[in-house]
């Protein structure tokens, strides 16, 4: 008998009968613990519904036990395609209205200016990721909260926002052998919160948002969120669950992720990449790996900068804006209009066609952004106050506790890979909205050790902790 035959027979004999049934039953349970040497016979398996059946049969407010998040709504994502199919689909796809696209562009440049102004060093944000998260939030907001969200997004009502967002999602979604642009959304509701299924269904249908019921304080949920972000950003973000642990006050988490990868229409030749000095803001220099290429294209010179772009294979492009010598990038972040003008200058009527000598340094970095200050500058401060209204999700939610974004980008000779996630956390009713105080004991202070009955056991002062 051959090795192959014997090996196959052995492996088939080792595959336990009924395994698929157990897997199907167990999908809604955490993995069972390894049996110890002294353990008895096989553990008892409790029959539970398949997770997708639970998704659709679950009545509002009912929650199965266990620490593993339960899916409440699941979107039907577009299929991956070939590059040729993607080109054809792009031509045929119903487009969002020009009004919506203009409003989205205006919001994006305003948001980029506000967010990047609050950061230092290498900066990065995803205005689209923020816009899609705020759009989801608007769907479940009421009253004045919904009004300020719609106003920031430049939309009249949620019905229009919903339709246009769905068209935008289908237009943008790209997954072919050349590159991809993958937006994804999810909603995580605490298991003690009663929620409105109708809102979750709208979010699944029009925003392609998956919804989960989970114990938001449980480490398993933090792991599930980290895994979800890692999956939807092809491993570029997410990962460590500690970044997603909650403290017991959060009732809902909203996420958008965006993953982008595309190849340059014409790649840079690696043989042309050479070390070259890069001058920092303070005048000092560092060495950068500079990629070189000569291309025929459109460029703009004027108003204190030069701008040109390089196209990707799947129709996106990367715009580069170089402030004139002596000018700083800060001036361009001053307002959304100025930022929009310089980042679209290569498309303006004053742009010229000619030969462009490109020198682009390879770069790769990751950032974390607190969005609150930037959102307040966009008129969205009301989301963080006691007056916020998220009753469309649940009557048991208060205001936003936090909003943040993680993002990363890599640019090299082949193309660009970038990813972002936006997280918004809403407080649960019953969580105390507290004033904050800082107590840093960095000068002489008093202290006492006091017994449970109130008697001071020791009293002292610290004049110098290093003595």
């Amino acid at each position: 008998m051959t090795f192959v035959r014997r090996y196959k027979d052995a492996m088939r004999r080792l595959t336990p009968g009924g395994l698929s049934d157990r897997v199907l039953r167990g999908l809604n349970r955490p993995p069972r613990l390894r049996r110890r040497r002294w353990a008895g016979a096989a553990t008892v398996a409790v029959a539970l519904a398949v997770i997708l059946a639970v998704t659709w049969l679950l009545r509002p407010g009912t929650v199965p036990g266990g620490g593993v998040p339960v899916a409440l709504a699941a979107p039907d994502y577009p299929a991956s395609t070939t590059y040729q199919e993607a080109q054809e689909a792009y031509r045929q796809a119903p487009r969002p209205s020009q009004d919506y696209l203009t409003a989205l562009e205006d919001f994006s440049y305003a948001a980029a200016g506000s967010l990047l102004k609050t950061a230092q060093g290498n900066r990065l944000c995803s205005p689209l990721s923020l816009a899609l998260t705020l759009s989801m939030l608007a769907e479940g907001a009421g009253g004045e909260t919904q009004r300020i969200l719609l106003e920031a997004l430049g939309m009249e009502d949620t019905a229009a926002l919903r339709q246009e967002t769905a068209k935008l999602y289908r237009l943008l979604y790209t997954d072919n052998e050349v590159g991809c642009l993958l937006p994804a959304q999810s909603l995580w509701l605490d298991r003690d919160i009663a929620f409105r299924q109708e809102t979750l269904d709208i979010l699944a249908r029009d925003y392609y948002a998956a919804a989960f019921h989970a114990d938001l304080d449980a480490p398993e949920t933090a792991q599930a969120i980290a895994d979800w972000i890692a999956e939807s950003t092809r491993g570029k973000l997410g990962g460590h669950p500690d970044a997603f642990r909650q403290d017991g006050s959060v009732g809902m988490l909203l996420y958008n992720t965006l993953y982008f990868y595309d190849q340059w229409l014409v790649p840079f030749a690696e043989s042309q990449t050479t070390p070259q000095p890069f001058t920092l803001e303070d005048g000092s220099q560092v060495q950068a790996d500079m990629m070189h290429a000569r291309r025929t294209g459109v460029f703009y010179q004027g108003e204190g900068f030069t701008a040109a772009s390089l196209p990707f294979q799947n129709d996106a492009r990367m715009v580069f804006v170089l402030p004139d010598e002596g000018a700083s990038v800060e001036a361009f972040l001053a307002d959304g209009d100025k930022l929009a003008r310089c980042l679209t200058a290569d498309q303006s009527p004053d742009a010229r066609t000619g030969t462009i000598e490109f020198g682009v340094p390879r770069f790769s970095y990751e950032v974390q952004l607190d969005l609150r200050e930037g959102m307040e500058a966009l008129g969205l401060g009301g989301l963080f106050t006691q007056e916020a209204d998220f009753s469309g999700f649940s009557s048991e939610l208060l205001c936003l506790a936090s909003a943040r974004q993680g993002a990363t980008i890599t640019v090299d000779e082949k193309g660009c890979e970038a990813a972002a996630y936006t997280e918004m956390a809403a407080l649960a009713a019953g969580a105390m909205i507290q004033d904050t105080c800082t107590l840093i004991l960095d000068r002489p202070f008093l202290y006492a050790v006091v017994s449970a009955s109130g008697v001071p056991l020791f009293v002292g002062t610290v004049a110098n902790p290093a003595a």
Partner: protein
Amino acid sequence: MDATVASQEMEALVRHYTPMLYRLALTRTRNPSDAEDVVQEVFLRYLRSPHPPREEEHRKAWLIRTACHVCRNRAASAWFRRTVPLEGEIPLEDPQEREVFDAVQRLPLRYRTAIYLHYMEDMPVAQMAKALGLPVNTVKSHLHRGRALLRDALKGDYDDLRETL
């Protein structure tokens, strides 16, 4: 999405891929209990994934890659290192089958995985390379070394271990 269709699709997926994933996980973890846990974890991740691949070849590659990833995570966990793997639970009564199985299980992990995917699942090298995220030549090298070690362990009893790719 229609719940009935979705449930049926998921059930078909689980029934089709569970045996392959279980055997792969058993090959890597050497423990039936862990292997079953790995299979559940892989399907849980598939359900939670916002962009699960739909096309057959991509889906198989995704499932294999995820299974290897989950096995690796379990091996690295502190809990795993503190506990003792259960031995003697491999129910193979035929001594020659036992000998072949043990010889493969004693191989280093990367050779063991390549031997399993190639000989048990009949995967061509190109498909294995894609599923494991490795260059084709690396996979060929793993198979070559794995077969050489098996020839030594099994004392040249099997002619088909001598054939080249």
